[in-house]
């Protein structure tokens, strides 16, 4: 057990070091797009969006939850990228030739991606605060948002890692990633509530786990505990099922790739 802690810490430390050495390229590509959604999209639609439809004090406060979960989505889906490069340049082979538990590499990646995601959620909430949006449920609510975000992130990171281990080239990986990301956002309650969607989009959005997470995060920001708690309960059930499915698939892909 002590040995595994040593392994996971060392591997996580490597991800942190890498990030700290390419902070400009990485941090900005990860945080920036999501912030832009909040700042530009939020302000653009501040007047255009009907508060009767979005059921929020204003569009910015409605969008905040969506942008938080979009950040989780992007980070999660990109979570396997570094492993993909490790696989392609042989570094993974070097790691796998050492007497480590096979799961340590995966665990280190989860730890790292979750930590980054957590920080980015706080950044998003901080920027939203600057635009006058503060969480109705306070610190405890923010803590719960972090928990929901990380639970969703675990499943997404598993999908990403499974893809990293399965694809033949990184071109494939990025095509699938680009293909997945936007529909996941549009076919969810991130930008518009489900009731305001055309029927067919509503249908897909209903089966998108992202919708359920957003619908739990949103009342934590704009409503309060009494409205949020039932939603959070449903989201937790959805997330446990989603994570179980993703982890199972991820474990299979990992086993097939590295034995």
């Amino acid at each position, binding site marked *: 057990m002590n040995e595994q802690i040593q392994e996971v810490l*060392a*591997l996580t430390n*490597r991800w942190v*070091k890498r990030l700290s050495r390419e902070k400009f390229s990485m941090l900005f590509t990860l945080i920036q797009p999501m912030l832009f959604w909040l700042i530009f999209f939020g302000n653009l639609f501040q007047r255009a969006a009907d508060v009767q439809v979005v059921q929020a004090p204003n569009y910015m406060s409605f969008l905040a939850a969506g942008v938080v979960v979009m950040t989780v989505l992007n980070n999660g889906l990109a979570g396997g990228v570094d492993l993909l490069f490790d696989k392609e340049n042989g570094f993974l*082979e*070097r*790691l796998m*030739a050492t007497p480590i538990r096979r799961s340590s590499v995966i665990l280190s990646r989860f730890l790292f991606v979750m930590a980054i995601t957590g920080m980015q959620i706080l950044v998003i909430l901080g920027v939203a605060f600057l635009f006058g949006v503060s969480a109705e449920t306070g610190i405890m609510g923010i803590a719960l948002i972090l928990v929901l975000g990380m639970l969703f992130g675990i499943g997404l990171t598993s999908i990403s890692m499974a893809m990293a281990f399965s694809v033949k080239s990184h071109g494939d990986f990025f095509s699938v990633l680009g293909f997945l990301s936007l529909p996941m956002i549009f076919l969810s309650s991130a930008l518009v509530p489900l009731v305001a969607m055309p029927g067919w989009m509503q249908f897909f959005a209903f089966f998108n786990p992202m919708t359920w997470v957003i619908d739990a995060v949103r009342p934590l920001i704009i409503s309060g505990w009494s409205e949020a708690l039932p939603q959070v309960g449903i989201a937790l059930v959805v997330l446990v099922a989603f994570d179980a499915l993703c982890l199972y698939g991820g474990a299979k892909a990992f086993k097939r790739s590295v*034995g």
Partner: protein
Amino acid sequence: MSAPAAIEVTNLNKTYDTVDAVKNLSLTVQHGEIFGLLGPNGAGKSTTLRILITTLSPTTGTATILGHDVVKEADTVRRLIGYVAQERAIDRFLTGREHLLLLADLYHLKKDEALARIETLLKLVNLEEHADRVAKGYSGGMKRKLDIACGLLPNPKILFLDEPTLGLDVQSRLNIWDHVRKLKEQGMTIVMTTNYLDEADQLCDRIAIIDRGEIRAIGSPKDLKASLGGDGIWLTLSDATPEALEQLTSALQGLPFVRGIRPRENGLDIRVDGPEKALPAIMETTNKIGCLLDGIEYHRPRLDDVFVAHTGRSLTNEPAPPEA
């Protein structure tokens, strides 16, 4: 029962989809030798190496390292071996020292032991000066040195090197060879893949020539070359009449070190064990029977000749098929 061999591979097969990367491969590596897997890209030598370092499982067959099965006792095997990866398997964002610190944790070394060992290794491979620079700026030679330090970090019983001098300049190459020889002197068993003939020839105690997933020949470079029939001495006669050739052939045939005589254009191709005794004796014989020589050439068989003899093609000229 004697102690297990360093490496024992029995009927190893590895199939990717429908491609047989390794076919029925068996070999034994003795303690303390440098064993080379020689072959073109895609021949199956990397696949074999990856099975031995436990990062790939064989389809059928077994391999043991110091008596431990690479599949069933993979964790034990990993604690006994060191792996010198190809140069591109370097994290360009980490410094040399950070690579070693990371690996030290993966081998579960205690902090002070790790620091001491890393200091020694950096000194050994002569990389102290650059240890705290990010690897992005390393030259090919420096990356290889770091690779070797990484491979040696666990104090392995057996060291595996994957194409250790691929793409290096001559100076760095000789440098790496020196390191490998020193490790052998210290009693380490070394297994390496290479597609350089001269590397296999000069560095390896024994080599396995692998082509299309199969072992074509196995032995020391010297024996493999000798199996071609020994060194060649080519005589060109001034007056190469059939009678003169006949006479010379029968005169030479009885000499003890002559292993075979074949006619060639205007002369003879004489296969001998070595040139030292053979050359003077051949000269003496030609003088005795009054045979005038126009020229005399001495040829040592090269490893490339061995390769051609066993695979039907030259390693140096064949365009490399894509790696499986």
